[in-house]
């Protein structure tokens, strides 16, 4: 919502352009951040389906990605969580069957990235 409308432009009530939620970065609400250990992931899609914000993107991989036990996972695989929209609810970590997701405090994550 970079350019906000004035009240005069809203005379017919709430009629905003479609897909404005993309511009609303709910990641700022986050207290806990999910950290994904890709080497323990089996790409089962449970986290993807449970995520209430659809913040875990997926892609199709022909060549495959390495996961738990060094196995190659081909087809639909998950990617890094989109932290612009992840609110840090932790459902992904709770549901993960291999415990490859852990929740850490946001300030710890920021300190870690500063050290890097």
């Amino acid at each position, binding site marked *: *919502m970079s350019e*906000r*409308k*004035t*009240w*005069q432009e*809203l*005379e*017919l*009530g*709430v*009629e*905003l352009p*479609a897909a404005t939620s993309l511009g*609303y970065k709910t990641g700022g609400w986050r207290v806990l951040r999910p950290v994904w250990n890709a080497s323990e992931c089996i790409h089962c899609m449970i986290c993807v389906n449970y995520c209430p914000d659809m913040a875990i993107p997926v892609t199709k991989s022909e060549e495959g990605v390495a996961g738990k036990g060094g196995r190659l996972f081909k087809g639909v695989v998950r990617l890094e969580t989109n932290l612009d929209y992840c609110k840090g609810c932790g459902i992904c970590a709770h549901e993960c069957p291999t415990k490859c997701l852990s929740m850490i405090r946001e300030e710890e994550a920021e300190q870690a990235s500063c050290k890097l």
Partner: protein
Amino acid sequence: MGVRKAITGAEAAAEAMRQINPDVVVAYPITPQTPIVEQFAKYVADGIVDTEMVPVESEHSAMSATVGAEAAGARAMSATSSQGLALMWEIVAATPGLRLPIVMPLVNRTISAPLNIHCDHSDVMGVTTVGWIQIFSENAQEVYENLLLAIRVAEDTRVQLPAMVNQDGFITSHAVEPVEIFDDAAVRTFVGVRPLDRGLLDLQHVRTIGAMVLPDYLLEVKRAQEEAMMHVFEVYAEAGKELSAITGHQYPFFETYRTEDADAVIVVLNSAAGTAKVAVDAMRALGKKVGLLKPILFRPFPYAEVRDALKDVPVVGVLDRSMDFGAYAPVYTEIRNVLFELDRRPTTQSYIYGLGGRDIMATEIESVFEELLSGKLDPEHQRYIGLRG
């Protein structure tokens, strides 16, 4: 010229709805609104109107479905009273923000508790802050004409806000009066079709309505809603002029009755204004200079115009048919606000009358005039007409 029919206020509302011929009517029966919907259902069953009538399981559903139909682009109506209005309150409050011009007859009845089916204004006075246009009607004739007018005002593209047309439960809704019903063709030309610049089912212009609005936009949305409400005055005047060409009647924001040179004026809504006119005439016959101001358009409230009408009156008595516990009564509050800007303000007195359908007699209003003229007033404390003890 129209045809004079002996009908009730409820039937007068149904007659207006017959001529308006809404696309959709969704309602749930509640005393004393029931005869409106009953009569209208007959028109639907007899094929006299083209309306899709939806019987629902509650008033909450009634207003929800009316909102849905109106959002889709239809002209949709409902009707209710008292507890029905209370049950649909959540959706009633949402309708103005959605900018949906639903027109709804409201048959005024006491809000429980204690449970009571008779007239007072505690139902409507609970919703005057949510943004509906509020129009009050003294008798069945006014109910009929106000509904026609309300359609044009609500649906005007400058306004697009919902409107309630009030009438007193039983006193107006169930009493038979001669009502002049105007020519179908002329009235249908006047009400026209809903000027629709947007509809949910318009697939060329897909849109979302009722989306969540956060702190970054809500203030702007509400400011725009207020602007639409301010447009009501001009649209009401314009549409009233057009309706006059059919009916020969005038559509002022409020009616004044024998107020020129008056030493005391009473302000009162709806049917009691008729009784007050009888009292004014009786007092005038005795040489006492008194008059009446009857608000018609209550939301938006025409502060400047009412102020101009009352500026030279020494004493103003305001009769409220509902209370605002621990505060000044609703109509009295408006009149106090009206007068504040004057350098030389009239003395005011608040009276509560007619709660739960208690009769108000012309002689009681005459006694109020006598009290106003006596000067023995207490503007900060309301008085009660006919209270025992």
